[in-house]
Structure formats: structure tokens, C-alpha cells
């Protein structure tokens, strides 16, 4: 049933190791079989990560602005630009000036050289606090702070693309991406917003980020393995990937009035959190899955954002197989890498492209995913945070 305040996806900006932009990902989603994805195995050995593809930053960001950012912000600004372009709104100054924005953000890059210099010097000294003052005041680059600030990805999107209706930055790992989509969805549904830019970016090629997740030995080591085939014999199972993923969400009224292409309709989105012991995770995932009740498994494809953490991935898949019996399940992080804040928006982007293209999405892990018999009319997107937070979205093909 169509409604004026349906929330529809009209723009997709996506960058992963599979390539830059929509076409590379349509190709992935409609391929007969997927090849082993690009892996950077050397730079951060023993950790394999999915690297950025080659990017011509200047296609979205002028040189002067590029210099004000590091790769994390650049990637977000770049992917946001792709989404605006794709929605046909990039040159529409009025639309951008009234466009709402929610960015799911972590933090920007540390200056590894400066950090190394300080800790190396500190190993030789007893007055570490004094040393810290000396070094920080002389070695830190003033602009680096701005490249690190979480809300400056959004700030740079405002500067570069003139998106200025509102600017909000959500944080909190995967949950940030879930809440960003959930919030934008409810605002449009309630008429508080007519069009919103939502998404995030994550850079996996960062030793400072790997260090964080290694606090719980979450990252896989050694050879790349398909998502559901990973084991605790090689690290924790998560393989991070550099990803930028932005969506333009619009009310159906607005989208149809301007004749925009509608990739998909968002029927529902919800996030939750809590203790995961003793079946509580399963119970919550089942409850969230109920937002998709009534869907026929055969008409449905599930894009799981499982991080790869072995135990969590197994538990999530068991629930999905029960709740969406008959549906094809695709663990997309296996071919893009896990993208933390950007994971949920990435899942929505892939789901929308597959519904729009009526794709027979190939198995991303052939031994653990079954082929699709026919294109899906509905897609379920999940993200289970590697430490906390869960989210589910339900999308349908535009009728």
C-alpha cells in the first residue's frame, strides 16, 4: 500500500573494496559468482583488511578541501557526494540547503608518527607527563584535530556539498548507523523532514583502529575466509573493510513530485540493545525480525551485516534461518569487510540496489549460503554490533 509519507531511497553513494559507486556494486549483486574480494594482507599483517579501491577524490572534492581532511572524512564526503549525484540533487542548491543530514561517525585518524615519537621518547624518561606537554605542544598539527573530530565529517559535507538543512552526528560503533537510519526514517514518516542524507564511512587501513578492536581480539588473522566459514583458530573472525555508504531518503511525495528514481521503500527499521547472554540476543533478534512478519521467505533476501565474530555470526544466522525460513541470506561483510558505523547504511544500500535491479544475488560464502531461485521483492537488513547494539530494516521493491 503506497502512502505519501512512505520513506523511499532515491540516492545511493557507495564505496567498498568492490569499487567506487553504484555500478561496481550492481555488478557484484548480479554476478553469477563472486570472486575473492580485494584484501590488503601485508600492511597490517597478521591482520587482513579490505582496502579502499582506487579513488579519484577530485571527482567529488576539490583539492583545497581534500587537504583539510584525512581519508576517513574524505571517504564520507566522497560517498555523500555520490549519493547526492545519484539522487540528482547535487546541483540542486535549494534541495541541499534544506536537506537534513545524519552521519554515523567514529573518530578520525591519529598521527601515528607523532604518537610513536612520544611513546618512544617516554620509554626513556620518568617525567612522562612533562614530556607529553613538550611534544604535544610542538608536534601536533592544528588541522589534525579537525580531521579527527567526529562531527567534522558532517561539517565537511556541509562545506563541500552545501548540505545545510541540519547536521547531526551519531556515534557508538554499529549502533550509530542503525540509529541514523532509524531517526531519519521516523522524521520523514512523521513529516518532520522531507529529505535526508544518511550514512557513514569507515577506514579499515588504520593501525589505530585495529588496536581498539584487538582489545577483545576481535579481528581475524592470516588468510581471508568467507564470512560464515571463519573460526577462532585465526583470531576473532572480524575482517574490517574500508567503506563509505550514504543514502538519500525522501518522502514518497517529494520523490514522486520531482520524478526521482525510487530504488526501494523502507517499510520498517528498528534498533535495540541489551545483555546477550542466555539466549537474550536471540530473543531480541527474533523480536526485531517480527517487523518483517508476513514476508514470504521465497520473496525475501536477507542482507546480514554480521561482523564475522565467530560466535555472534553463528547465533545470528541461526535466528535468521528460523525467522526467515526459505529466504536467501547474504553476509555482505564477507565481501566488503565489516564497516562498523557504516555497516547498516551499507546493508541498506546493497539491499536497495538488489531490489531495484531484481538481482539474483550470488552466494558470498558458497558453502554456507544457498542460491536464489528468483529475484526478491523484499529485503531484510541486519546489523549485530561486534560488542553491542542490533538493528533490523525491512525494504520492499517500489510497487
Amino acid at each position, binding site marked *: 500500500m503506497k502512502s505519501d509519507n512512505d520513506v523511499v531511497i532515491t540516492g545511493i553513494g557507495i564505496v567498498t573494496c568492490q569499487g567506487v559507486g553504484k555500478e561496481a556494486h550492481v555488478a557484484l549483486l548480479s554476478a553469477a559468482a563472486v570472486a575473492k574480494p580485494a584484501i590488503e594482507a601485508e600492511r597490517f599483517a597478521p591482520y587482513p583488511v579490505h582496502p579502499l579501491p582506487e579513488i579519484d577524490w577530485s571527482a567529488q572534492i576539490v583539492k583545497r578541501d581534500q587537504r*583539510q581532511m584525512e581519508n576517513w572524512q574524505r571517504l564520507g564526503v566522497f560517498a555523500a557526494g555520490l549519493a547526492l549525484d545519484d539522487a540528482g540533487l547535487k546541483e540542486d542548491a535549494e534541495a541541499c540547503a534544506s536537506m537534513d543530514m545524519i552521519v554515523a561517525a*567514529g*573518530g578520525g585518524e591519529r598521527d*601515528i*608518527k607523532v*604518537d*610513536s615519537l*612520544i*611513546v*618512544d621518547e*617516554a620509554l626513556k624518561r620518568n617525567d612522562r607527563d*612533562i614530556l*607529553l*606537554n*613538550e611534544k604535544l*605542544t610542538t608536534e*601536533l598539527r592544528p588541522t589534525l*584535530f579537525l580531521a*579527527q573530530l567526529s*562531527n*567534522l565529517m558532517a*561539517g565537511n559535507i*556541509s*562545506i563541500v556539498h552545501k*548540505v*545545510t*538543512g*541540519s*547536521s*547531526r*552526528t*551519531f*556515534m*557508538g*560503533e554499529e*549502533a*550509530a548507523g542503525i540509529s541514523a537510519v532509524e*531517526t531519519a526514517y*521516523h*522524521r520523514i*514518516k*512523521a513529516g*518532520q523532514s522531507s529529505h535526508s542524507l544518511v550514512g557513514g564511512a569507515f577506514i579499515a587501513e588504520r*593501525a*589505530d583502529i*585495529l*588496536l*581498539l578492536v*584487538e*582489545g*577483545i*581480539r576481535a579481528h581475524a588473522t592470516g588468510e581471508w575466509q568467507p564470512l560464515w566459514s571463519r573460526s577462532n583458530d585465526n583470531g576473532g573472525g572480524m575482517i574490517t573493510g574500508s567503506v563509505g555508504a550514504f543514502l538519500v531518503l525522501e518522502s514518497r511525495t517529494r520523490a514522486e513530485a520531482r520524478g526521482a528514481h525510487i530504488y526501494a521503500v523502507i517499510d520498517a527499521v528498528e*534498533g*535495540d*540493545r*541489551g545483555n546477550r547472554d542466555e539466549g537474550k540476543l536471540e530473543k531480541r533478534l527474533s523480536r526485531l525480525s517480527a517487523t518483517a512478519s508476513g514476508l514470504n521467505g521465497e520473496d525475501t533476501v536477507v542482507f546480514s551485516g554480521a561482523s564475522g565474530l565467530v560466535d555472534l555470526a553463528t547465533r545470528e544466522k541461526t535466528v535468521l534461518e528460523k525467522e526467515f525460513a526459505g529466504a536467501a541470506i547474504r553476509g555482505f561483510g564477507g565481501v566488503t569487510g565489516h564497516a562498523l558505523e557504516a555497516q547498516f547504511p551499507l546493508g541498506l544500500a546493497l539491499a536497495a540496489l538488489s531490489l531495484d535491479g531484481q538481482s539474483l544475488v550470488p552466494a558470498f560464502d558458497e558453502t554456507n549460503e544457498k542460491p536464489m531461485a528468483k529475484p526478491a521483492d523484499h529485503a531484510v537488513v541486519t546489523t549485530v*554490533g561486534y*560488542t*553491542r*547494539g542490533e538493528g533490523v530494516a525491512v525494504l520492499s521493491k517500489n510497487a
Partner: protein
Amino acid sequence: MSDNRFTDHLGRPLVAVTGMGVITSLGQGLSDNWSALTSGTSGIHKITRFPTDGLSTRISGTVDFIAVPANNSVERSFAFARETTKEALAQAGLSGDFDGPLFLAAPPVEPEWHDRFALADRSPPSKAEGDAYERFLTAMRERPDPVFLEAVQFGSISERLADMFGTRGLPVTLSTACASGATAIQLGVEAIRQGRTDRALVAATDGSVSVEALVRFSLLSALSTQNDPPEKASKPFSKDRDGFVIAEGAATLVLESVESALARGATVLGIIKGLGEKADHFHRTRSSPDGGPAIATIRAALEDAGMDESGIGYINAHGTSTPENDKMEYGSMLAVFGDRMKNIPASSNKSMIGHTLTAAGAVEAVFSIQTMLTGTLPPTINYTNPDPTIELDVVPNVKRDGQPKAVLSNSFGFGGQNASLVMTLEPV
């Protein structure tokens, strides 16, 4: 919902504040804060948390009187928010599970330097220049450290608050820089207006003052270097103002639809009547010289509140004491309020508590409501050398009686963030 006592000019649910809690460098709790704030007391002091040798700024409004199990930004920010939330819920008369969503403004976090040093101590020796993180990773593989991870997860503060107070769903943790507190309130109000919930818990907290945070702001020339005496450094709207004073604090507001608040017999402390926002694309740290986005933000808040300029009786200014903000904020207010501006009292709490960054918008919203409830306008202290280009009634140095029925509170931040709130005492 058909009862128009409970809806605003657009038929949306009116949103009440039924509980408030606050911590600043002036103390813990609304009562202590309010008496200090109205007596013109400054909470700014010499930094003792870390040595300040060689630093150009050596003062701050840190909160050092709340016990924390580890000296890091997450533990402090959580502890402050926990305390202000307890206070707010008690005032609201709520116990047990809160059963509504949580919107939390919290600072971005990174590992503390003492944790990096500790990691370096247990790491293998350097093999090449710039290889600290490779060594850290080797050490971490040998002995993982979940506490280290938890102290740098952006979601770990809201996680604990959600468990402790029984909020519903996935909490939102947000940062819109110095506008964060106002944005958190905005999200809470929006959720109630959407009809998704009758109540929302809004907290904003910042315990992130560390040497690196201080140096970073110093390198941007944002901080006052008038270290002596510390309590005189923050002087919003003064001619010799030279930057803000970095500070910590937290505030919690319990938001409820007026209908649900009255139904359970709660006291309505004030109404969040209107909210406005507009991003600025001029520069990463500077506002558009013409104040366009700030003007649009204030106007949007008034429009959302269904009010014109004449309704505002007091302004809780952002007033950071940086040369640029105060000038821009004045210009924007002048553009909106015109000739009336010089007759609207507009004071800056930051003259006493410094800039509580992530928490500021919510801390100042609490003080705005308290201003209306008590009929007392808090002063702008250290106002001895007025900026002649800023013709404002800043409530100089000494509190004053006043009965504003509606208050405007502004928040502007790095990254083009602007948010304004209009609060009223009564629903109409």
C-alpha cells in the same frame, strides 16, 4: 490527543520538562549550582588533573569531585551523567525502569596517554621509526584488554546508562560539537512529537578535559590564556575577551508529553516549545561572517515555537568569550530582534562555568528553565570592560529579578553546528 490543552499551534504534543539534574565545576545538583550561579561565583580554577608546564592555558572548569574508578573520559562522562540522571528522575518522581528512549550527547573518546604508555611498556622494542602501533598490536594479541576497548567505545556510556535506568530501545549517542546538548533535547522532543513515546530521557555529558584536548583547542587559538586569576578569564562580550575556558559538566532533562505528565500528576517545570537548527558551510571552525545560519537557526526555533520575536524575555546566550563567537552571536541576535535587542537581557553562564562543550546546550537549558522558575536572571560576570561594538544587556556582574515567560538558548559549534531552543514556563 484531541484535547488542545496538550497540543501546540501545529497540533503536536506539547513537551514538558519534569525533571532536571546538573553538574558543573560549581558543584553537584541544581540547588548548589543555582545559588553559585546567581551569586556570580566562578567555577574556573587552575588545572590539577595533569601538569600544565609549558602550556599556554593552565586553567579549566574541570569537575574533580565525582569519584571515578579510572581516570579517563568515558568514566568521568558516565559518572557525571549517572549523577545528573538520578537527580532528574528524582525530581520527576520517576523510579524503576524509565521505559522511554535515551538521547545522550557525549564527547568523542580516544585512548588516554597513560594507557598508551602502559601499552608501550609491555610492547616489544621498536624496530623502525613510527612503529608504535605495530608493537601495541603485538602486545594486545598476547594479552587482550577489554577494559582498554571499553574506554574508547563511543557506545559505552549510553550502554551503561541504558542498563542502569531501564531506557527502551537503542540509545542514541550523538555529537554536534558545542551544540550537542541542544541536539539531544531536540531528538527527545522530536520522538515525543512523532508519537513514538510519551517520555524521553535526555542527557549531555562531558568529562573529556585532558592535556591533549587542551592542546588541540589551544592550537586552534580557541582558549583563553588569561590564566591569572582563573576566575576572571571567561569574560563573554567584554572587549578583552580572548577565548573560551574549557570545562566539564553534565545535565539531564526528563521530557514528557504534557498530557502524560499531567496524567501522572507530575509537576511541569517548563515547556520545550520550539527548536531550530541550520548548518553552516562557510568554514570548519568559523561561522559565516554575515551570521546567516545562526540567524536562520534562531528564526527556525521561534517559528517552531509558534512565536514571534516579541515573546522572548531573556536569552541564555552561547557567549563563549571567544572574540569571534560573541561578535557573530550578537550580530545574529540583532538581526532577529532588531532595536529591541538592547532591552532583552542576555547573559552567558559560561562566564562562570566555562564552556562545558558537549554538555553545554543541556546544562544551559536547565539553567534557562530555572531562570523562569525562580524569576532570577543569572549574571554575566567579569563584565568590566564592555565591548563597545556589542550593545547588549548582559545582566552585568550581578543577578537581577526578571520574569521572562519565554527564553531563547543558543548553541553554536565547530563544524557549522547551530541549534537554538525556545523554552516557556507555561504551555501556551
